[in-house]
């Protein structure tokens, strides 16, 4: 069953602040970028104002990502009790380790819960659960 929303219940919007605005602006354009410290060559997630490695505040840059990764862990939302009312259960939240090394969560849009496994190759895709909201998501990818 692909990811399905329940009409009429708004999806919670990402919280956009000055640190992560470039990320969500890029998602709006269907581009996937990650934050990196150009001095240390270290990527971070979530975005932040200072590199925790070298404490530089002006070496942080946004770099296009390959958009490819592997499922690192996942949770199947199987009961109403824990699920968000605006999404049809069962739905899957995957934690994906990107090729750049950072890990992000999203839904997998095109897989049954029992198809998902740790190590599964996935890539970024985009969807629009409601007017004016674009999210990055993950879909299956041939390894």
């Amino acid at each position, binding site marked *: 069953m692909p990811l399905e929303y329940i009409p009429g219940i708004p999806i919670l919007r990402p919280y956009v602040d000055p640190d992560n605005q470039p990320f969500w602006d890029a998602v709006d354009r269907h581009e996937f970028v990650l934050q990196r410290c150009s001095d240390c060559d270290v990527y971070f997630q979530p975005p932040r104002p200072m590199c925790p490695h070298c404490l530089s505040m002006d070496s942080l840059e946004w770099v296009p990502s390959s958009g490819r990764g592997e499922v690192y862990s996942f949770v199947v939302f199987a*009961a109403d*009790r824990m699920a968000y009312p605006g999404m049809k259960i069962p739905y899957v939240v995957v*934690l994906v380790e990107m*090729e750049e090394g950072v890990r992000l969560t999203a839904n997998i849009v095109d897989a049954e819960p029992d198809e998902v496994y*740790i190590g599964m190759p996935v890539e970024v895709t985009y969807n629009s659960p409601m007017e004016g909201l674009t999210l990055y998501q993950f879909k299956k990818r041939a390894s």
Partner: protein
Amino acid sequence: MQMLEEYRTKSYRQHLRPPVEENLIRDKTAIVGIGQTEYSRDSGRDELDLACEAIKKAVADAGLKMSDIDGLEALTLDRVSMPTLIGSLGIENLRFTSEVSFGGGGACALVMHAAAAVASGAADYVVCYRALNEASGHRYGRGDGYAEYLKAAPTLHYGYYFPYGFLTPLSWAAMYTKRWMHEYGIKLEDTGWYSVVLREYAQNNPEAIFYGKPLTIEEFHESPMISAPLRLFDCCVDTDGAAAVVVTTADRAKDMPHTPVYIAAAAQSSPIETEIQTSYNRPVVAGLPETWYVGQELYRQSGLGPADIDVAQLYDPFSYGAMIQLEELGFCGPGECVDFCQGGDRIRVDGELPLNTSGGLLSEAYIHGVNLITEAVRQLRGTAHNQVTDAETAIVTAGPGLPTSGLILRK
């Protein structure tokens, strides 16, 4: 990618700090009073009311008058406003108040901060408390509760989780649990004994929510998946209620009504890249480094090791949350905790490590871990419903998977 690995691992579990020069808490402070309300699924009362009752009972248990109390210690998460509470307690000129962050991760830190206050002379008698209507009222553990929370208090990382229907602490914990099961080859069919033994403990504890409701291993495996891999009976029990403890110096404790329960060690830890249950960019997702740090610190301060601990009260928001702590605290090796709990004998009252002897957060009540501290005190006083014979030392921990805290208590 290589640099990222280096950054992530350079300090991971390698930054145990040198001992403080002079520890004024160790053996110089004590818990002298405990109090609690009825634990229920619907108190029909507000949280202020519950807090008042638990505090009144703890103060009376310590043989004190309310006017003797000169300090109050709360969790920032508590919904009772502190000035309103002080007004209701009728304490004139309260001279020490403080609040601890990190929800259930702060439970033991309440006692640590209170101990720091009495040891330093900031106050003489400090009350620590937690009151919540988690079952009937504001369900912060539920999806809709967090939706409300997001409106009020968005933080840096939640924006990456909530749009995906990824909300509620249990499901965040399910993510690291899944990874841990994968890395250690844990099979779902081998789990469940932790929940069964805690339910056994609750059968002797009339205060427990699950008193009179035993659970078999078969019933455990038939219980529905909530956030796979977590089943219903892996999860803690939403509770209405409150609990409180009174902390003072060891010198004063000697002349008070109950056997003093001394604080042999107290610690907090917040490792890098740690979020509230969603620390998915730490080098290792399948582990609880905050609990490991707290354990190392507690053992060093107290001079005790895992083998010296008579009874453990480990914070269990869900079964694996407590079980993985067994590994981090050295009671068993990495990936061995399910084996350790298999059949339940090792964690029963006459076992190698009696664990969460009141029924814990799974089967007694979910008072954010403050009820684990009161149970440790009862064990060391010798007044527990499931009394461990000659218990002299107890370890207590707070919420895992977030900045956390812990205590070693002794007679």
